[in-house]
């Protein structure tokens, strides 16, 4: 519960943060809300040499209407995402899901960008953003680029971000008028999902985008279910495909077998809820 020794640098600007990342290379970790990184350091599961604190870069905390999308600054706290009126009307699955993360303390400190960049398959928000086909904006020494959510999550705690890049913005498409659901199954209200399922209806023909939390090495799309739906299957029939292509973990919370069974139930429930609103 006592972290190993580390150096601490506070970045006063985004450019300063990028410069510090360049200077320290793999030895550096960005510190935003700290609610994923600090527990790992206290358990000595992570021992970065340098923490680059970007927590005070206030201009990275915002939610803006971007025309066909809503732009969310990477340092926007979960609490602010959960309570944002633009998101509530234009992309409600994001604000709803942000309200399910951790507990009030976590939501007041943790940031959406931190949750995405951490790349934990047990986190809720990456799944939702994946199902939404969100776009991530990253800035590094060589400039700014955008990365599609489908190309961002590459493995267990692995993302497409380069070591000297800072995730700056998340762009979510507006989904007003499309049904949605996020089904989070957990033992305690503040826990990570044992399994989570996101569903966003894609049109009037019963098609939907499906995302899974904690069903593999990274947040993943429920491709088999999506295909069954576009082939005309109803929610119950499509949910039978929920386990396909997944690789859920076995741990003290649940076996892989149980996670697959849960996924089927949650996909059906998500589709039923999404198609009813």
């Amino acid at each position: 519960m006592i972290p190993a020794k580390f150096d601490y640098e506070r970045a006063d600007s985004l450019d300063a943060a990028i410069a510090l990342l360049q200077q320290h290379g793999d030895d550096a970790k960005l510190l935003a809300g700290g609610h994923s990184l600090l527990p790992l350091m206290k358990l000595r599961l992570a021992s970065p040499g340098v923490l680059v604190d970007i927590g005070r870069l206030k201009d990275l905390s915002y939610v803006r209407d971007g025309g066909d999308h809503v732009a969310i600054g990477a340092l926007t706290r979960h609490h602010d995402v959960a309570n944002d009126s633009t998101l509530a009307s234009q992309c409600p699955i994001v604000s709803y899901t942000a309200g399910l993360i951790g507990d009030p303390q976590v939501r007041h400190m943790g940031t959406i960008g931190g949750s995405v960049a951490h790349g934990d398959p047990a986190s809720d928000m990456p799944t939702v953003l994946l199902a939404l086909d969100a776009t991530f904006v990253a800035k590094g020494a060589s400039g700014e680029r955008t990365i599609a959510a489908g190309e961002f999550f590459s493995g267990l705690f692995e993302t497409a971000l380069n070591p000297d890049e800072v995730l700056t913005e998340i762009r979510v498409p507006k989904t007003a008028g499309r049904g949605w659901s996020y089904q989070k199954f957990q033992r305690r209200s503040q826990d990570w999902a044992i399994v989570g399922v996101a569903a966003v209806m894609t049109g009037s023909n019963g098609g939907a985008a499906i995302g899974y939390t904690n069903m593999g090495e990274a947040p993943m799309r429920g491709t088999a279910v999506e295909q069954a739906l576009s082939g005309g299957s109803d929610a119950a029939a499509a949910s039978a495909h929920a386990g396909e292509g997944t690789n859920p973990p076995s741990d003290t919370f649940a076996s892989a077998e149980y996670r697959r069974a849960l996924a089927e139930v949650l996909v059906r429930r998500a589709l039923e809820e999404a198609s009813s609103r």
Partner: protein
Amino acid sequence: MAKVIGTEVLRKEDPELITGQAKYIDDLVVPGMVWMHIVRSPLAHAKINGIDFSRAREMPGVIAAFSGNDLADDWPGPLLMAWPVTEDINNPSHWPLAKDKARYQGDGVAVVIAETRAQAADAAEAVDVDYEPLDPVVDMEAALAGGAPVVHDEFGTNRCYVWTHTNGEVDSVFASAPVVVKERFVIQRQVPNAMEGRGVLCQPNPAMGDFTLYTSTQIPHIVKVGMALGTGIPESKIRIVAPRVGGGFGSKLQVYPEEQLALTLAKRLGLPIKWTETRSENFLATHHGRDQIQEFELAADEDGRIRGYRINIKVNMGAYLMLITPGTPLLGAWVYCGPYGGEAYGIEFTGVFTNTTPTDAYRGAGRPEATYAIERMMDVLAKRVGKDRLEIRRMNFMPASTEPFAMPGGLMIDSGDYDSTLDAALELIDLDATRAERQARRDRNDTKVLGIGFSTYLEMCGLAPSRILSVLRYAAGGWDAAQIRVLPTGKVVLAIGTSPHGQGHATTFSQIVAEDLGIPVEDIEVVHSDTELAPLGMDTYGSRSLAIGGVAVHRAALKVVEHARKIAAHELEVSEDDLEYDGGTFSVKGAPDKAVTIPALAFSAWTAHNLPDDVEPNLAGTAVYDPQNFVWPYGAHICVVEVDTETGHVDVQQYVAVDDVGRVVNPQIVEGQVHGGVIQGIAEALYEEAVYDENGTLMTSSMSNYCVPAASDVPAITVGHAGETWSTTNEMGFKGVGETGTIASPPAVINAINDALSHLGDIDVGRPATPERVWRAIHGRGEAAPEAAEGPGAGAGTGSAERAAAEGGGDAQ
């Protein structure tokens, strides 16, 4: 004089607790203080071939580092084990640091002392221990099988003891009974998880050779004895202080290695030694609770009237015997019959060593295990003989009595009326409507089904009559003490031998004194938990403080009254027989305006200008009370659950608790105890389970994967009342309430779950009833094997980070 006992006086302890002003161990800082850090074995079973401190000693701030062998000469005796339950018990020496072998994950093998806490932690990582891994044994039944690795070589077996108790002709009753039901129950291991972890600060006074040991404990007086025996330092040179203590639940009813280490190091180094436990250490190195495998047989007549009990229990001791490890299950040995009658009772406990953290007392200690077993059995018996679950209970209740009566296990119960609490509980729930809804959901094949569970329990507490403890081979007595000083200005200092850590002694005991002496509650200061200021006592556990310590307080107050009476008679110039006493005022019979109060008499006693020849100055009273029997609270709890048959999720929708705990001093404090206890018991039924993998690695080793529920996860609790059936054990009528909730509630919840699923076939959901365990029971998938996971600590704990660490990759951003 207004009544004070029985009223809801606000807790006088609370202002400093809720404003953050209270000082706990970690708040204590003294000049020159240095920190110790324990090097703990990562392996459950390993030979220690050597320890190399050379790198650690070079680290910044390091003052010293020792192995167990380095300190062996400072320890004339092992850690205190006070309950050798049988003459032939296998009792291994347990030293503050392991000398030859590490026997569980977390076993201390070395200690590093440095100037700061962080320096000590860093240096501990640089201690190179040469471990030779040995095969561990984790499972109790495997440990008893031939060829199993042996935890303590000197015994050649993992069997620690076999303890039996029989009352009546058990075998003949079972041979002749027309109905015998038999079940096996597994009581999972739990981690007590007091909100405040442990901690010590030992301040030496080298010039005088004395030591003050501050420690977060329930038992300062017993720790003092343990320290004297373990270190050879004279008991008179050791002062133990428990400052504010943030909960214990039995986990601080212990004499811990770290206490003896801090004292040893303070003596060796002449420096104040500080240690604050981390939560990770709390999981590994603070004792665990429960962990039994029970085989239970009930013999009954064809109509379900119970004739006999035959119980065989294996209890996991863990790797060592700590303070009362072997005796803890015996605290439940008499209540495997619950509040029910019968003519024969036979029980056998087998203690088993394994390479796991030692077990010991955890809230309820032995009685939750017993209550779970009998209350599950009552449902099984009801089903077998085709009776309603309430009817089978009522027909077997022992008759109501306000006088002592014998019970099947052979002890005497102080008083009881078991129908009364059940009647009161049923008043608080619409049983007919709930049953109708349960049926309606079944009829329409709803995936969310309802169940109702009952638990009508009896427990024994108020530990304990010293003579009975002697018969049980416990090494100490069970009495307690109180001292009252009435100060010159009429205020009172009450010093007690019990040691509160959240219960509300200061308020409750002040109410007793206030009623006896007519002095306002706010004018009474309660002193405790400091062996230099408190009278010699036996501390706080086993719901004993009120039933024993509270009686001592009352008796000390009566001694004050008798002391004052002599002075009053002298001042009022009448004989003592001519005085009436009521609520702090002596008056002359027939002349009520000739009167004098306790505060005025205290002043007279202080000036001592005009005292009778045979009266000592200073108004004071001391009493020591040793009970002649236990006290026996009981009650009825009812739980309604909804089970999602698709996911296995259980939602507790209603919880009703009616407890008769004898005479109540402060109803609000009692209700708070019931709430906390019930929630802890619901956690036991649904959430908490300490899981080891086959290597003896604790898989549930943090708050993220050991599921202590949060406030948002537990239901509202309806507390009702059936009246007060006073105990006959003591003249105050007190029983105990500290453990009743935890004792009563687990079977109420599990019985409700099994009731909810009873239409689906022969389903027996075990505990904790996690969603997966319930789902497996419903869908016939057998026992889960999630422990066969990817590696130590794998899981959705810290997100997926521990899993990534186990796989050796994926450094998290």
